């Protein structure tokens, strides 16, 4: 009885204690929301007030006029979707070969694929830039997508999952080449859906948030992704109103935030699996 009541008290304390950091944690977003309604002079008013004088959407309208925000969003969506699709597709094929087919050299291939997970992108960026430049791909969608169309981590994740599916299924069917492919897409892929879904989320978020690579391989405004496009506002801030910059930030941040709130469970599962990298 006594244990239960202290338990209850502890929980109430936990709730109370949590609300303060929670407010601190969400404050940057609330603050930016407030700034996004302020005009050029109101932003600099001192002391600053969180409630803006007007709730006019003029800054949001100006933000769309200052930069092709729609184009940035379209580019990010296209690049992230293509990258995710290709990474998932190539990983399914490779993982199936490694997990379900016996052949010589398998251990070596698996080892090499796992080794690629240890190589950070910063280490390969100079030769990759030179390759893409040689192919005349600078400032194209290919440059943004193709170098990331396979993922060692994705192969490894799906390989582990496919290995755990009972092998008897396949042996009973006595498969040759063509029916193996059918078997892969009719049985193995549906059974691997939890891993595929988690990896897709991980891959999509990673692609959407990429910064260094799109920064160096895009040049024109039309090819920029959301992450790079926002930099335009940063560098022009002398002439631009902070309210407009903050409105643009919120516009460009909102698709991912909405996706997160709508699919929190899958989102979190994708990140936890990804973090095992």
């Amino acid at each position: 009885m006594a244990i239960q009541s202290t338990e209850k008290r502890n929980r109430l304390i936990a709730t109370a204690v949590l609300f303060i950091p929670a407010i601190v944690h969400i404050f940057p977003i609330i603050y930016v929301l407030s700034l996004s309604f302020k005009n050029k002079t109101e932003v600099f008013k001192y002391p600053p007030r969180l409630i803006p004088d007007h709730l006019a959407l003029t800054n949001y309208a100006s933000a769309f006029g200052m930069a092709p925000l729609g184009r940035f969003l379209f580019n990010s969506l296209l690049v992230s979707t293509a990258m995710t699709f290709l990474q998932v597709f190539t990983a399914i094929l490779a993982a199936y070969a490694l997990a379900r087919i016996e052949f010589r050299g398998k251990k070596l291939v698996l080892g090499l694929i796992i080794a690629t997970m240890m190589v950070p992108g910063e280490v390969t960026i100079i030769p990759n830039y030179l390759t893409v430049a040689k192919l005349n791909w600078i400032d194209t969608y290919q440059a943004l997508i193709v170098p990331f169309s396979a993922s060692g981590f994705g192969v490894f994740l799906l390989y582990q999952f496919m290995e755990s599916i009972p092998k008897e299924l396949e042996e009973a069917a006595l498969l040759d080449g063509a029916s193996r492919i059918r078997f892969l897409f009719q049985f193995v892929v549906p059974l691997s859906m939890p891993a595929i879904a988690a990896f897709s989320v991980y891959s999509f978020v990673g692609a959407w948030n990429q910064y260094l690579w799109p920064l160096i391989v895009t040049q024109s405004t039309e090819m920029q992704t959301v992450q790079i496009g926002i930099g335009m506002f940063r560098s022009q801030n002398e002439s631009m109103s902070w309210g407009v910059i903050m409105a643009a930030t919120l516009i460009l941040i909102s698709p991912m935030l909405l996706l997160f709130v709508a699919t929190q469970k899958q989102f979190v599962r994708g990140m936890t699996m990804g973090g095992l990298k």
Partner: protein
Amino acid sequence: MSSSRSIKNTALAWTLLLPTLVILGLFVFYPAVDSFYLSLHEVDAFSMKKVFIGLDNYKMLLISPEYWQSLQNSVMFTIMTVVPSVVLSLAAAVALDANPYFRNLLRTIFLMPVAVSSAMAAMLWIFFYNPSSGYLNYLLELIHINGPNWLGDGKWALPAVAITTVWKDIGFNVIFFLAGLASIPNDVREAAAIDGANAWQRFWFVVLPMLAPTVLFVAVVSVINSFQSFGQIHILTQGGPAGSTNVMVYNLYRDAFQNFQTGSASAQAVILFVVMLIATLIQFSVAKRQIRS
């Protein structure tokens, strides 16, 4: 019969592996080797002609005060981000785990920055640091502290970038700590409670030891992420003022893509690779020892 089937199987396996191997070969293996190759050369910025110079690029880096500063900045930045983000997210996760009220709302608030990229996180924080009108210095003034010119002051720019990074990383870490806490059986904690352990004792002697592998794992990932930080620095300070936020990756970016010193930048890439590999191996061996004891 069986050997022809095994040949067919082998052919099929390699066909299925081909797309992955081609892409990883072209865009991971080849450039990893080529980075090392380039690091041993002086590369002309316009003709791309290469002259072999042995380890000279490395030697030049080791006597360059700018490069040493970038190393030091990276280490400082790692300490300033990893320690607070691990401690704060562990505290938040324990509280979230114990708290039965507004569970989903509070979870969502703490995890949300996971959906925010480092560049966007920087944009959310940039005006907060404004010396004359930003909210941070306003709050400091309320408690009679004269706030610095955060992003414009060599002493405060790196901590400012670190604060933004910690804010962004907490959500990611909380996810792992919540998963770790969920895997601790409830009866272990209840048994300790019945034996008279208070909440703090239960955390310190029961929960934390069982969570040790998760803590180490989160620390490893955080160290690696910190070393790779770039977007927030590019947006907030561009390495300045006076090189105070010029970390290793930023220095590499500048030398490769602004100063066009391909050879030297490649040597930096190789050093970065080795440093990160060592960090990972050290942390893993620590983790193993912790689990054994």
